[in-house]
């Protein structure tokens, strides 16, 4: 097989319930606690449940550093802040104005709801259910593509800009789309990620499905009672290995494979055996040209709903179950909640940080492992075993998507490998 362009990660930015930045995120998910709790993004007195992974107020320096801040939706702000941090780490943040590096870069983004939170405010006012005038500025940020466009405008991204909105698999699909863009030569540099804010529609919607835990969610545990919705975003800087080597960029990890499928079975419930998820995982491993036995750990979808965690466990067992030792599985959703469209982006960021720092963060949540899930759940931080890492998402509409990341290695970063 001929040599294939390799995609490496050279920057990561995160906004989560742990705060505005990669380090509070990493410290938070590594510590075993949860940032899910009471929230005030909107009035939820009439809703069934009352906890979420809400992003705390931004540091006072941030609104000044980001142009047009007052007119950005929360999702836009999460997106731009995460992109800024990722570009800074990659050494691509221009001191002022657009980054010349980004003039040919692609942006492959994900969001479930874009500026829906602000759009809801518009509609409540229009209907007289909230005080104030229904000014058009409340819906100016409504498009699902708005966070991506805010990032592109802020940093001068002028290559292809696309937003994937495939529910909870969006972020993972967007990263796969970026991988394809680098491999095909469509771009040599890409930003990939996602952003979503809490909103009434998704909060009420998941409550209507009785899918929300009254307590912070407890992935893979016997006591789990559903998911917790979170908000925030993450952006990864991806570039070809050649480009990274030529400019001497530090490589955090390599994105080696992607795969996605549809269950084509049910709109909201996963296939009971996780058949579609297993096919997505197998496709991603084949794309990465690695064997199942090479997987060191899995950053699971792990929403904490009774159905997901069993179906996902079965999918993992079906694909990875023949190894000598069970594969370590972690879910960060107990610590930050389910970020819906941007979940895959934030979880990819966690996976990259895990590889770069050699530690698998624990799964937060009180209780006992549900043996029916069949997973080797990481309950306290572990040293990452040698091998590749997988990030997996299962979504509404039957979407499944998986990514494979490999640790950076000095010799691997230097030259393109023959496939």
């Amino acid at each position, binding site marked *: 097989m001929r040599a294939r362009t390799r995609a490496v990660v050279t920057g990561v930015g995160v906004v989560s319930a742990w705060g505005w930045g990669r380090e509070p995120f990493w410290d938070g998910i590594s510590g075993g606690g949860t940032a899910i709790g009471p929230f005030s993004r909107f009035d939820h007195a009439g809703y069934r449940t009352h906890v979420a992974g809400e992003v705390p107020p931004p540091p006072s320096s941030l609104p000044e550093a980001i142009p047009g801040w007052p007119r950005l939706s929360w999702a836009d702000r999460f997106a731009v802040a995460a992109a800024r941090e990722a570009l800074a780490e990659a050494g691509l943040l221009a001191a002022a104005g657009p980054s010349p590096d980004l003039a040919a870069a692609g942006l492959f983004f994900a969001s479930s709801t874009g500026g829906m939170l602000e759009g809801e405010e518009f509609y409540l006012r229009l209907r007289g259910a909230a005080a104030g005038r229904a000014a058009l500025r409340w819906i*100016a940020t409504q498009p699902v593509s708005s966070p991506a466009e805010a990032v592109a405008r802020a940093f001068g991204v002028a290559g292809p800009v696309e937003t994937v*909105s495939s529910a909870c698999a969006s972020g993972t699909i967007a990263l796969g789309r970026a991988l394809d863009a680098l491999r095909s030569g469509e771009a040599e540099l890409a930003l990939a990620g996602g952003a979503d804010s809490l909103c009434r529609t998704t909060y009420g919607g998941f409550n209507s499905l009785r899918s929300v835990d009254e307590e912070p969610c407890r992935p893979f545990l016997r006591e789990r009672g559903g998911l917790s919705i979170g908000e925030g975003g993450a952006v990864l800087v991806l570039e070809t290995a050649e480009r990274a080597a030529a400019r001497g960029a530090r490589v955090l990890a390599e994105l080696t494979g992607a795969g996605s499928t*549809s*269950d084509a079975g049910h709109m909201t419930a996963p296939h009971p055996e996780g058949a579609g998820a297993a096919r997505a995982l197998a496709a991603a491993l084949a794309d990465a040209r690695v064997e199942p036995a090479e997987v060191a750990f899995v950053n699971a979808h792990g929403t904490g709903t009774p159905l997901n965690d069993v179906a996902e466990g079965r999918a993992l067992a079906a694909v990875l179950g023949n190894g000598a030792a069970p594969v370590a599985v972690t879910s960060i959703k107990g610590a930050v909640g389910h970020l819906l469209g941007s979940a895959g982006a934030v979880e990819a960021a966690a996976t990259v940080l895990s590889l770069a720092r050699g530690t698998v963060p624990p799964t937060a949540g009180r209780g006992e492992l549900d043996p029916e899930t069949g997973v080797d759940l990481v309950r306290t931080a572990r040293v990452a075993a040698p091998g590749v890492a997988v990030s997996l998402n299962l979504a509404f509409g039957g979407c499944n998507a998986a990514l494979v990341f490999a640790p950076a290695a000095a010799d691997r970063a230097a030259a393109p490998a023959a496939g």
Partner: protein
Amino acid sequence: MSGTGGSAAGGRVVVTGLGLVGAWGLGLEPLAAALLAGEPLAGPVDRGAAASVPPRAGRGVEVAARVPPDLSLEPWLSRREARRMSPPSRFAVAAGRMALGAAGLPVGPGAGADPPDPDLGVVFATAYGASSFTQGMLDQAIDEEPEAMSPYLFMESVANAPAGQAAIHCRAGGPNETLCQREAGPPAAVGRGAALVAAGRARRVLAGAVEEITPLLLSVLDRFGALSARPRPFDRRRDGFLAAEGSTLLLLERDDDARARGAEPLAAVRARGGAFDPTAPRNDWGRGGAAVAAAIARGLAREGLGPGDVDAVVSGASGARRGDRFEAELLRELFGPAGPPPVLAPKRVTGEYGGAYLAAALLALAGRPAGPAAGFSEPDPELGVVPHGGGAVQGVSRVLVTGSAAGGSAAWVILESPGTVQR
């Protein structure tokens, strides 16, 4: 480095089927007749009792190209199936099955049959998603209480609900992606679908667009000053676009797969790409058409093509004031002093959203005549682009399809005759 277009290991990516649902009804021929007539497919939209934004004084466009509410989608979608779907899901499933049928592929035994076809993928673009269902959920929360929100409305309100329903009802077990890129969505989705086939991630892909226009959405677009009942692309007096709903889906597959099963390709996807104009305001078009033209020229060059190899343009120009200005700058810069080849602007008939204008490219490649530029009477000296006036478009073997969105995103594909020798 492989190409960015449709050059798969097993040959080119070709279009073998087309499914269409829209204001004209079902399928290609009624749409072709409407395009030939050249008049907008505009019909009145009754705002009814639903909440909407009051129009500005002296303005107020209350027409759209909507799917007739009593349009039967049979045989592509039964009434029983339709009952559990939002309007855009209905449009997309019907169009998907129509495209599969047109391609000579099994339309499928329906939901529940196992296993799904792992080689069939779905890439849909939607600008607004199932907005009637989102609005319905919020109405439930306002008029009753948040706990009254319906799980059915929620499930069908997510942007990827049509793609999920198409997977279920067309038995598509492959990659399933929904793009939200506003007016650039349809060519972006076709391009992404072709890339999935070219990369071997799916053997066949249903790619295109789906849209729903609600009275609320129409009133909001109107309040932004975006709408016209009489769209006039490239005309000096243009004052907005016609909002449209429906679904347009292309079945994409590898040329050798198509020929092996005796299918006759309608077109090949030769090249694709996207670019962003950072000068664009949040909800309007900017002045960066030249940079996007340069990106298109680079994309063509990667496929061994130049602007001179393009025989016709199926433009995304919709009659939007600054959108058409952006598009005209793009075309002027791309084609230089020689000027562009014939420029078709089918959104004067089909309206904006739903992707129906893609069909005009397939019709041009089939040698079908174009409709008149009805309503166009006054060229805009600032634009320097005049749309094709109707009748035969001679010798079209390669068409550039553009789509430029408010907010800055642009996408394009090159469709060529299936018999075109690769050069």
